[in-house]
């Protein structure tokens, strides 16, 4: 991890004015960590610096060293941020501004964060620090580009996607609530790079992610967030048109790869969100419940009801479940019988893992049918 010539802080003349402060461990501690000498050394100096309250340039060097050894050291991150702010605003309270983006200190910090985010992709603090910086510099577009690149390393990384959602909500002028509070009193003097056009590329971005992996649930979730979850932007005001567009989108993607729970969840999500009965897409779902052989192949392309692609594994258990829900919702004896038929199929053949659940559905459907009949 270290260059051979990298000295311990205790060996560096420029740190000789600081008396290192050792960790207080007490007798018989729980789960002590056998620290390396490098870690002990650096954290001894951090404890000393925190005690003296020093917030100078060398503290950035010290905290960078610790963070690289332990990216989850949240106190080192916290002290680094405070030092950074003190150095950046020596004589005035911190204030977000676009001009900060060309400040050499800010550029260096963001460059370091770009490096660390790739190295410590799964560490919360790396992303958290980034949020604080970007809330100051107000350059969300750079972030969207960075996120896109960083998803190349791990297309389902939870922190990366959360950060994209936060960036859009925080800067995109729709909803907000992403978590970082920045002085709001004098927002008028700040030249924000804020606006709805930040969202303009999001659907293309989702398309690109799904083109790489049609089963990437993070991308599906992101689509829901963009279209339904975080305000309505110009160009999307005609919700009926948007519903239609989304239904076509998800149906098409199901036809490309029917056994894709993410896509079916998205379909259910839209229908519930728009209070549309599941039965309205029964004509689409039905063919996916048949076995391969029984599908009629014709050349009619029906955008509303795209057929399963050639070679699709059928029947698809998500479609079976969906159609059972459609039948059950009819609340007729015939409907319940059809649903029960499907559930039996799922329990014994197509989704035996959830056997107990399907049996439960059968029991409760019979029960509510009986209650309904008795009441009538």
């Amino acid at each position, binding site marked *: 991890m270290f260059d051979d010539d990298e000295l311990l802080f205790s060996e560096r003349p420029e740190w000789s004015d600081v008396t290192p402060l050792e960790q*207080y461990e007490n007798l018989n501690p729980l789960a002590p960590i056998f620290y390396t000498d490098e870690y002990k050394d650096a*954290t001894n100096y951090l404890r000393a610096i925190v005690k003296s309250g020093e917030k100078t340039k060398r503290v950035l060097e010290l905290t960078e060293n610790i963070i690289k050894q332990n990216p989850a050291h949240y106190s080192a991150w916290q002290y680094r941020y405070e030092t950074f702010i003190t150095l950046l605003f020596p004589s005035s309270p911190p204030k977000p501004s676009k001009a900060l983006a060309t400040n050499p200190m800010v550029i260096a910090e963001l460059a370091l964060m770009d490096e660390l985010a790739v190295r410590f992709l799964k560490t919360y603090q790396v992303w958290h620090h980034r949020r604080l910086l970007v809330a100051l510099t107000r350059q969300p577009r750079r972030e969207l580009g960075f996120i896109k690149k960083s998803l190349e390393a791990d297309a389902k990384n939870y922190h990366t996607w959360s950060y994209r959602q936060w960036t859009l909500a925080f800067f995109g002028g729709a909803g907000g609530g992403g978590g970082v509070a920045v002085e709001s009193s004098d927002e008028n003097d700040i030249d924000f790079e804020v606006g709805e056009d930040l969202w303009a590329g999001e659907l293309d971005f989702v398309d690109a992610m799904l083109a790489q992996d049609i089963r990437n649930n993070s991308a599906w979730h992101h689509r829901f967030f963009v279209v339904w*979850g975080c305000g309505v932007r110009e160009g999307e005001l005609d919700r009926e048109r948007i519903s239609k567009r989304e239904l076509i989108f998800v149906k098409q993607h199901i036809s490309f790869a029917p056994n894709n729970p993410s896509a079916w969840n998205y379909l259910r999500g839209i229908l519930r969100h728009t209070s549309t009965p599941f039965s309205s897409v029964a004509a689409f779902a039905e063919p996916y419940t048949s076995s391969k052989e029984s599908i009629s192949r014709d050349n009619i392309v029906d955008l509303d009801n795209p057929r399963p692609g050639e070679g699709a594994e059928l029947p698809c258990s998500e479609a079976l479940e969906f159609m059972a829900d459609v039948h059950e919702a009819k609340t007729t004896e015939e409907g319940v019988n059809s649903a029960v038929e499907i559930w039996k199929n799922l329990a014994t053949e197509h989704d035996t893992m959830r056997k107990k659940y399907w049996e439960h559905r059968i029991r409760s459907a019979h029960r509510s049918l009986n209650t309904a009949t008795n009441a009538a």
Partner: protein
Amino acid sequence: MSDQPSTLLSAFSRKAHAAHCKLCLSGLPASQIDVDGSRLALAFYCLGGLDLLGVLEEEISPRNREEWRTWLWTQHAKGKYGSGFRPGPFMTGRDPRISLQDPADYTNYDTPHLIMTYTALLSLAILRDDFSKLDRKGIIAFLRCCQRQDGSFSTVPGSNENDLRTLYCAFAISNMLDDWSGVDIPQAVAFLATCRTYEGGYGQSTFCEGQGGTTYTAIAALGLASAVTKKEYLTRSEKQVTIEWLLRNQDDSGGFRGRTGKEADACYCFWCGGSLKILGAESLVNSEALATYLSRCRFKYGGIAKAPGESPDPYHTYLSLAALSMYPPQVHDGNSTSETWKFGVLDPLLNAREETVAWIRSHVPDRKVHS
């Protein structure tokens, strides 16, 4: 495959798993440096594992237990944001003022931590501490300092690091103290509702993808709140959607995954399984397949890993034991193998063995109020 996998289960080597927990309590290699800022959580997973295995008293000497309690209390700190527990001594310099009678006043950089306070209370209860040193008023003040304007809770006062885990911990602590005056329940529940997703799960924070771990913290938090407000926070259909999503996360391996389309992972057997239990749907889980999956995650020298073939760690070991305690397999071999698969009964809301929760009930609340 789900009908009779139980016959395939080999004996659960309780000694070996206990040894894994004990080994981690005695020390961790430098490669685990990233737990430096969350050592108390790791200690809880180890102690909780020993508790569920029912071997704490036989494996750990009374003197040792006493020393561990003492060490835990040295993480108890009192100061301007109230009282609570730190993750460990990683920011505490040698300081002669530190003593149990007079908890150290903290700076902004070694304040108590909300998640660690929750795990410390559980750990002390597992070690049967009498909680005579607990600064109850101070903890309530600390919770108040951690709740943010949007209803969420920060990990440490003033931090922007907030998600559903911290909200759950604040609720769990209030439940343990039997005092909810430190939290604004309606505001917190309103924040929690913004984390619900179209899939029926809950994301880590507003707008995030539904995830098994944060779904557990959401469902358990609502359960804890319901017990005191007597309110139902989810409609029948919301519950139904969540149950369906959780059940769909049990994949063909028998294990649960944390998100749609991801691989199964031992810890989600607890996070999803625990949520289902709280929602009253435990009978719908395929517990035989679940145990089969977890049995494959066992490391041959003790400990349980996140997936078959991976290295074990206390987090996955504890959560697997907790999952097995809720979903014990039916081992009908009529001999000693079935005994090895039995664990202490778990309270799914607080995530601790029932006996430990009973200890909490009788020792953590303020007796002056409740006697």
